[in-house]
């Protein structure tokens, strides 16, 4: 064995590539090992039928941190935008759609009072999101045995909270732990608006509007706006193009990326990480191993619970990481027609979440390992802006489906057809005739997402974004500052602070921590 790399990074997800790039820029010799054939992790484009491609997991770019984008010079490495500043349209069966863009809402029989209330609510939550955004840009402080850096972070956070003024501070403290349903009821009358914002608060999670912490989920999403994303953006070529741009940037910085190289184990000895062993048996030694995999994959499967001390094994085993989100991909022989929607509106973000109880009922099912019979959907028709994703004249539709269980009774194969059909019927209520346009379809269940993208439980965030699993609790106490359990072992993925979403901050923060700790880390 030769020790040729300073750092071995497990997984070429977006956070892994960001982390690798920063490390390489700091002079480290970095090897990234990726099991899949393409870099990017959940920033992936998938050809699900001959000639038809979609963004396989994340379909919108709305949280990428501007510093990361700038430092990686992504636009110089091939990142192109198909569309930006897209609005969200909450669909109505009768065509009374509600459109939201920033703090502006229209349609859907919205009253002037609700419009005004939303402007106020938006301004207030933007202030809250700003506070969160600052906390996301640094490592989470330890509360016990905190050092100067941590104390400064805490002081800044406390000061930021104080600077918001008494009303904002007490209101934030009040709502951050509670649920979206109650906060929506306090503020608005319009059912569609409440449904749309509620869906924003829980996309990718295993929560309903009445689940505690959903207000945090909403603010978490709104952080994207603080980072400069006015509305949703669509990457040309699908999210895989973002992964490729990140990989190109990493390579330009000197990172070596090996694709189709699955890591079988992270090797440890006497409290130190020693390297990794690949699935084919090859051993690569390194003083620092950074895992872009989720914490459960990292500690349970790659390190092994037996190699952890009991307290850590116990915490790993208690991480809430069950996904409830599926993806449906449809290949269409033409542009679908949605009742009451203009053709130019089809490229916006289309949401089916008519009211909060609709979402709550959809969530009820997944609590009992059943799929929603009337799921809430976040739909993208990327071909409106990016014709290259489908053959000429044809289109693709991609939908985030809330909710689908990770392991339904009888296994997914018994339900796949029925559930696909059910989601299609759900869309057809808003786009009559779409069934006849379908030439191919693909359903990615949480189990499929786990298999293809290495996310335990199929959870998009590598661990639920509940208050018990964020900030100084993410992914679990004792592992909150990227290093965990072993000298030289780091986490840099969505399971680490600040969490999931194509943001890049977990990767950047981890790199900063590794660089700060020096070569011996």
């Amino acid at each position, binding site marked *: 064995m030769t020790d040729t790399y300073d750092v071995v990074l497990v997984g070429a997800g977006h956070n892994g590539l960001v982390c690798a790039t920063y490390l390489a820029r700091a002079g480290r010799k970095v090897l990234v090992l990726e099991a899949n054939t393409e870099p990017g992790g959940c920033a992936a484009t998938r050809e699900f039928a001959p000639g038809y491609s979609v963004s396989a997991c994340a379909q919108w770019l709305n949280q990428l941190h501007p510093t990361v984008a700038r430092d990686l010079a992504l636009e110089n490495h091939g990142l192109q935008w198909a569309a930006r500043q897209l609005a969200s349209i909450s669909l109505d069966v009768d065509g009374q759609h509600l459109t939201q863009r920033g703090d502006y809402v229209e349609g859907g029989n919205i009253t002037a009072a609700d419009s005004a209330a939303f402007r106020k609510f938006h301004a207030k939550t933007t202030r809250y999101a700003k506070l969160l955004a600052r906390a996301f840009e640094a490592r989470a402080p330890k509360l016990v045995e905190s050092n100067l850096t941590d104390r400064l972070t805490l002081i800044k956070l406390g000061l930021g909270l104080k600077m918001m003024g008494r009303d904002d501070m007490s209101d934030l403290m009040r709502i951050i732990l509670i649920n979206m349903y109650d906060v929506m009821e306090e503020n608005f009358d319009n059912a569609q608006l409440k449904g749309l914002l509620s869906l924003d608060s829980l996309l990718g999670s295993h929560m309903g509007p009445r689940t505690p912490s959903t207000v945090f989920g909403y603010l978490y999403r709104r952080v994207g706006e603080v980072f400069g994303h006015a509305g949703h953006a669509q990457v040309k070529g699908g999210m895989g193009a973002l992964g490729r741009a990140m990989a190109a940037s990493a390579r330009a910085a000197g990172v070596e990326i090996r694709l189709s190289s699955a890591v079988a184990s992270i090797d440890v000895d*006497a409290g130190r990480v020693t390297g990794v062993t690949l699935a084919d048996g090859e051993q690569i030694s390194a003083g620092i191993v950074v895992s872009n995999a989720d914490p459960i994959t990292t500690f349970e499967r790659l390190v092994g619970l*037996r190699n*952890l*001390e*009991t*307290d850590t094994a116990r915490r790993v085993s208690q991480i809430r990481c069950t996904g409830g989100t599926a993806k449906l991909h449809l290949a269409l022989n033409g542009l679908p027609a949605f009742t009451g929607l203009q053709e130019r509106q089809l490229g916006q973000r289309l949401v089916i979440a008519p009211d909060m109880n609709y979402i709550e009922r959809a969530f009820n099912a997944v609590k009992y390992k059943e799929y929603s019979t009337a799921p809430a959907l976040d739909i993208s028709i990327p071909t409106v802006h990016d014709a290259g994703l489908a053959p000429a004249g044809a289109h693709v539709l991609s939908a985030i489906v809330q909710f689908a269980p990770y392991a339904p009774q009888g296994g997914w194969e018994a339900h796949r057809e029925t559930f696909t059909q059910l989601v299609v019927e759900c869309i057809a209520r808003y786009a009559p005739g779409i069934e006849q346009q379908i030439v191919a379809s693909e359903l990615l269940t949480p189990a499929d997402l786990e298999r293809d993208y290495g996310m335990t439980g199929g959870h998009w965030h590598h661990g639920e974004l509940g208050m018990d699993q964020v900030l100084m609790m993410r992914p679990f106490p004792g592992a909150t500052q990227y290093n965990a359990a*072993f000298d030289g072992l780091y986490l840099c993925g969505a399971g680490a602070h600040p969490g999931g979403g194509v943001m890049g901050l977990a990767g950047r923060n981890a790199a900063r921590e590794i660089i700060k700790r020096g070569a011996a880390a």
Partner: protein
Amino acid sequence: MTTGSDDTMMLTTPFHSRIAAACELNCWGDWMGYTTPNAYTDVELEYFAVRNAAGVFDLTPMNKYRITGTDAEAYLNRLVTRDVSKIGVGRVGYTVWCDEAGQVMDDGTIFHLAENDYRICAYARATDWLHWSALGFDVTIEDETAEVAALAVQGPTSCAALTAMGLVGLDQLKPFGLTEFDFEGEPLVVSRTGFTGDLGYELWIAPHKAEALWDRLFESGEPYLIKPFGTHALEMARIEAGFLQAGVDFMPAEEVVRNGRSRSPFELGLGWLVDMDKSVFNGRRALQQELARGSRYRFAILDVDGNKPANHSFILKGNKQVGTVTSAAWCPTAKSNVAFAQIEMPYGAVGEELVAEIYYQRELHWTRVLAPCKVIDAPVFSHPRRRATPPGNF
């Protein structure tokens, strides 16, 4: 429950009928929820029975857990600080186990009963910790505290008394050895272990044979002056022998609520139980850091001037308070006044002279004594028969 009944929440051991009959003082204590005799007749007499003949102590309330399965050894090795692979079948090992902060949760003994079959005896209840520790291991954990009755037979005539009861060949059992006899058709496990620092054995049997075992033991032991002894006499013997008592000389880490009140093995003088060559075990990372950084405290055995036991004393170096006493006793056999103390580093090295600030009361009159004391390098009681095989016929 009716008023005036004798009902109690306290448990009794399978020996209770015999113990109650022998307990002339009716002086009971509570050991992990079990009714336990503090003294039977006279503490000093019981103590001298242990040191000069044979004493019998009911240790059934000791928490006993059976660990079986193909990963039993690997599991225990990750759980405790010492190398369990070095405890062969038929052997017993004393050890401690720590939490992730390297703080001692408990001390106890591991009995290697057979291949992939161990019993762990602990001071504290450990069911949840043992089960959490099983994540990733193929082991079965069973609490057999109530399923195994246990007696300690300690003292110079213990071997002879047990041999007279029919345990022929017991004199060949080495210290920390483990063997099995037939007792009226029931297996009787005998280990050469104990808490008195002398020759002694512990007997492990199914509860329904407990009374028969007690009766046979006292019948055959009579010529060997066998006597039951309670926890007070045990306390004298174990301090004389230099044994720590969980809950007294250290706080089990899980019971500690105040920061800094728990102790690491190094701070308890138990560094010899820590095998840093093992790749992983609970507390390893923290203990590695402690080795690099230095410990906060040192465990010291003090030989205190005078005959006033230094219970609860402050230990002074000049005018500075550098430690506190956790256990103290006048030790009759060694004829010395012994105290166990936790001393702040860097004080407490062997040979160092310190002062114990002792308070004692006679007829409501409190007296303060500043007794010079010295850190000694070994327990005050030790006898060659403890390690000899055969131990000799006393």
